[in-house]
């Protein structure tokens, strides 16, 4: 029912556009820093782990780069990064909308004749859907930079071997797979916390509870849907 009200034609497109741009900046652009930071270190750690645990004289020298790329592309940058964002963005959305609910700001919108669900939730969902593929691409790229960091700075592996592995048997479909998965997760990250925030009743304690429930629920949903999506898209 809430989604029905959310996906309706906005009353005024100039207001919708303003909100859409604001949400893209607040939920997406503001998350770029944390995405790049985490991706860099996880890329480096994956590379080190692969080198230490998989690389052996019987394995081809490109195996470290190859496995690092596959992990980053297929799981880390789409699923795990979205799981991290579910914590950051999800709690932000649930607490923002929940606070608006308990301080009667949503009632004020309704009294004005504004479809509050459409005005508040739709720009968040569309904003996340727009920005998420970019975050996934940035994350993959930064993970690879992190992997090169271990090669050039820590000398864990040889840069040429890493390059060879990163280019070995590359399938462009995996990039699309990663982006398609992230779009589903972007919807979960924005829609589930919006629901929890919008339906809050009571005071600030309940806003906190809604925020926690939103993060837990969206994380579980991401993990479950990851299983199905991976099977479906592979």
């Amino acid at each position, binding site marked *: 029912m809430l989604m029905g009200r959310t996906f309706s034609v906005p*009353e*005024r497109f*100039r*207001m919708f556009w303003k909100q859409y741009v604001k949400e893209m900046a607040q939920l997406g652009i503001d998350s770029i820093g944390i995405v790049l930071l985490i991706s860099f270190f996880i890329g480096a750690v994956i590379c080190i782990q692969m080198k230490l645990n998989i690389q052996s004289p019987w394995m081809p020298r490109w195996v470290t780069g190859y496995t690092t790329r596959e992990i980053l592309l297929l799981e880390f940058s789409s699923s795990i990064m979205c799981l991290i964002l579910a914590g950051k963005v999800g709690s932000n959305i649930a607490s923002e909308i929940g*606070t608006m609910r308990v*301080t*009667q*700001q949503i*009632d*004020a919108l*309704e*009294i*004005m*004749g*504004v*479809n509050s669900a459409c005005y508040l939730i739709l720009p968040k969902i569309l904003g996340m859907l727009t920005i998420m593929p970019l975050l996934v691409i940035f994350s993959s790229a930064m993970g690879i930079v992190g992997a090169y960091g271990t090669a050039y700075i820590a000398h864990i592996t040889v840069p040429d071997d890493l390059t060879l592995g990163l280019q070995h048997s590359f399938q462009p479909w995996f990039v699309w797979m990663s982006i398609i998965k992230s779009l589903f997760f972007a919807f979960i990250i924005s829609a589930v916390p919006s629901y929890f925030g919008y339906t809050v009743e009571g005071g600030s304690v309940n806003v906190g509870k809604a925020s926690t429930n939103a993060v837990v629920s969206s994380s579980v949903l991401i993990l479950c849907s990851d299983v199905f999506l991976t099977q479906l898209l592979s």
Partner: protein
Amino acid sequence: MIEVKNLYKSFDGRDVLIDINTVFEDGKTNLIIGQSGSGKTVLMKNLVGLFEPTSGQILYDDRDFVQMTKEEKVHMRREMGMIFQSAALFDSLTVLENVMFPLDMFSNKTLRERRQRAMDCLDRVNLMGAEDKYPGEISGGMQKRVAIARAIALNPKYLFCDEPNSGLDPKTSLVIDDLLHSITQEFNMTTIINTHDMNSVMGIGENIIFIYEGQKEWQGVSSQIMNSTNKRLTDFIFASDLLKEMRAAVMTTDK
């Protein structure tokens, strides 16, 4: 004019409003008074459509709000302004943006015209100079005045105020009361104020409805309260010993 006919509202089988019949007149400050839990806020939420009545009619100039479709209600609400107990200003917007919000949403005026109208509204509530501040940076009284400016931005026909003086000092409360009273007369609005404040009752109450345990117990004007024989009303209005003594003194003088 807003006419309420045979209004009932119950929650989980418990009657909160019982057979409310009343008229809120144009150009007057209509007050709903009553103890906490008596059903005042529920009545107001029924009037503005935040609650659906169990039965009865709410007629806005003979248009039955209860029977309206969702779309009709949305259009109807554009004729309403509301001031909430907590002011309910949008935290992320400045004072000017808050007042401009209904204009941005529903007016076809140019940006300059919308801005000018918002500035006029702020001027009307004596808030010039505060337009670039955020709600968190201004006092409670100023927040209420911003809420009034936002509520009148689209020239509503009906103005609803839920405890506008809550949390304000007596002097600021008088300022808000005077403002609401003068705006009501200036724009010939139907203003309904839900209040506990006895200063408001005696000062601006042109049509007062006293709700007791979900039922309309008494209706009249402020000048009739002093001489009222309704015990529930007098117990509520003159709750403290000081007020009881004052009333007794006034009545003795009148005799």
